[in-house]
């Protein structure tokens, strides 16, 4: 027997979410209907609130509920170093490490003609505008080490080279805490290419 219309609609909406297939969508919908009413309402309210309050930071492009975001507004951070990343989740990952005290610039993706993403679809104009204002000594290109991330870094490198500030790229190598024997061949090859002298 088919579900009632509101249930079908809920399932359809859930199915649009990334990583959710028809069966998971159905399970989630039925769960939300059988769970206490307040729980479902809390979820609905959380989604609504997040969408209303969270905006893109006008400086770095990260998600934020205050504009500019906490990082861009923090005078204790080093505003002369900008770390360029693909997605907001990359900012979150780097922040968790606590290893970087500069500021960020979120591109909103990586170059990928297969997905119709060219340079004009990324927040590159905004990056140039930030650099033009001056005061930036270094740009760290922290896009992913895959084909698209590499191409994006290459594009930015060619674009920014004439501006004269220091450009750097995150190192490739072995994951910390991992054993060499379990690393894949490509990672090991890259780690050898990027080895450094310790004297």
């Amino acid at each position: 027997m088919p579900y009632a219309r509101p249930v079908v609609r809920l399932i359809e909406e859930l199915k649009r979410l990334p990583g959710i297939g028809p069966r998971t969508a159905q399970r989630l919908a039925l769960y939300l209907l059988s769970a206490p009413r307040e729980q479902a309402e809390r979820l609905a309210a959380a989604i609504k609130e997040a969408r209303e309050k969270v905006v893109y930071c006008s400086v770095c492009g990260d998600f934020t509920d205050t504009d500019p975001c906490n990082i861009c507004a923090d005078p204790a951070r080093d505003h002369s170093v900008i770390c360029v990343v693909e997605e907001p989740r990359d900012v979150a990952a780097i922040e968790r490490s606590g290893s970087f005290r500069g500021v960020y610039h979120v591109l909103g993706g990586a170059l990928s003609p297969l997905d119709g993403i060219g340079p004009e679809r990324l927040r590159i104009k905004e990056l140039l505008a930030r650099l033009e204002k001056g005061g930036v000594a270094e740009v760290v290109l922290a896009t992913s080490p895959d084909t698209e991330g590499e191409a994006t870094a290459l594009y930015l490198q060619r674009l920014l080279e004439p501006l004269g500030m220091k450009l750097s790229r995150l190192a490739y190598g072995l994951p910390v805490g991992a054993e060499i024997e379990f690393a894949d061949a490509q990672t090991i090859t890259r780690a050898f290419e990027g080895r450094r002298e310790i004297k």
Partner: protein
Amino acid sequence: MQLLSLDMQDFRNYAQASFRPCAGLNLVRGENAAGKTNLLEAIYFALCGCSFRTVREKEAIRNSATGAVIRAVFLDRGVEKESAVQVRPGGKTLLLNGKEESRRAFPGEASLFLFRPEDLQVVSGAPVERRRFLDGILSGIVPGYRNALQRYFRAVGQRNALLRQGKSRNDALPGYDTWTEAIVETGSVVLNLRIEGFRRLAPVAASLYRELTGRKLVLRYLSTVEIQESIGLKESFLKKILSVREQEVLQGQTLAGPHRDDLLFLVENQSLRGQGSRGEQRAAVLAVKLAEAQIRAETSSGGLLYLLDDVFSELGPHWRAAVLDALKGHQAFITTADPAVQVGACSFRVEAGDIRREA
């Protein structure tokens, strides 16, 4: 690498079959469509976790059955291991020593040498088949080749997508320089590795061919990029790719680079593609495959397992002896439909989904 036992359930035409091979040469006899290739496929499955024949692996489930199971016990560098592959219509499960694992945990292609009768058609076939043939061989003898190739293909796919946009837009392509640089960068790595592998492979193949036929075999790599010594590989590649830009935009495809290169087989300075007889073409391909086997046997640490499907048909006694010579000291599985083949090996007969040891 040595296979100790193999058990199949509902795999291809085998409802239930057990196979206990010998350590050395194993001859698998049977009529056409008796299940000889299926047996090789099952061995490959057990060591690699996938099929060499199809990507739609559920085809391998016997008609009317709900799933296929292959279990194998083998010696990997002297250590006994046990693998199980379960193929269901909805997917497959791979087990190594009773634990669920991904395909990467399996010994994989590096542990075996595969010869398929389809290989013999590469001389007369399309360039893409020759590239695939060469890539398959080089992946086994040049470290890092497979990865380099994948990176290059990915970049070419992106660049082609960009070029296709150019067809409709007819203006400057944003990102064109970047993607061009990306394929020059990754493509140069592929070309360098290809040249390196080619320099090892070609002389060995030529000397095997001379030994067996008394004639001169030359393998020539035909590159779409003419490498000018004065400016080096990368610059030559870049120059070439910039020179075809207009055609590329028209066709929406990257037109130069290792993905468009070809391989030429020359015997006594004549291309085998147009002039060669079937027999000559087979001999040339077999010489290249034997060269691969020889190079890999020298470099592989764990020893190779050989799967040779129908390698003996239409082959003179010289060549049979050369093939057998290459297999010395390794475990090998050779299928044949020819009752006249005698190689002094453990012999098995495959018939109607049953495998029996012959006296």
